[in-house]
């Protein structure tokens, strides 16, 4: 059930646009809470709460640097979700490539009949 909790927590963390924007910003490199709060109209405590959700989900890590707490993306945080979505994507695409062939064959047959 560990994997389930992990996926649920990851999806909950990703369900918020501000948190996705924070992740997108961190994809460019480490940033302090102040730097992360800058582009948003929400308060710094609100940003701190988002950061806590992302950290609890294992998506980001925070280190202590004097009075600052810079954040960066955690490696492996999206693993549980990625693994399932990768599997689904590949299984579907394999089927749909076969469907492409089925459709092309039928289309071809119709063309030769007319």
């Amino acid at each position, binding site marked *: 059930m560990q994997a389930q909790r992990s996926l649920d927590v990851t*999806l909950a963390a990703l369900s918020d*646009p501000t948190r996705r924007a924070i992740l997108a910003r961190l994809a460019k490199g480490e940033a302090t809470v102040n730097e992360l709060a800058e582009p948003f109209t929400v308060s710094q405590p609100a940003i701190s709460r988002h950061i806590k959700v992302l950290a609890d989900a294992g998506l980001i890590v925070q280190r202590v640097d004097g009075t600052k707490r810079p954040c960066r993306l955690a490696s492996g945080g999206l693993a549980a979700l*990625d693994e399932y979505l*990768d599997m689904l994507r*590949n299984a579907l695409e394999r089927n749909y490539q076969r469907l492409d062939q*089925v459709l092309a064959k*039928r289309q071809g047959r119709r063309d030769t009949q007319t």
Partner: protein
Amino acid sequence: MSKLTLETEGETFVVVKRRFEAPPEAVYRAHMDPELIQQWLLGPDGWTMPVCINEAKSGGKIRYEWSDGKGGGFSLTGEIIELDAPHRIVHVERMHLPDPTPDNRIVTTFTAEGSGTLMTMRMTLPDAATREAMLATGMEHGMEASYARLESLSSRGGV
């Protein structure tokens, strides 16, 4: 390049989009006619679907049985809720692995786009037990972790 896009919608849904070089009538039929379904809805290479029942009417029964040719296999049953040919299919399905997985309600739409079709399929994210059972049936075969973590973030983002 893959023509398929797959995005999560909130915590509950997965939305898959794929384009086909055929009109909606043909793509819809390939989803409803058992003889055609058996040619493509197969999963990993080497698997076949010896049993394919698909009653194309609302309330119609669905039963697919797959085999890996080596004594392994699993089945899926379901019911068609609503049909609007050739634009929309609403159905529920569950896999038997062999215990039935929770019902998954799936809405599939086919929209004409030029000479082709845009298919959109919206389904529920399965729970962990279902995912593990799916992986155990061999669906992970050929799995590639082919896309970068950051690309997955941006595609899922819609920031």
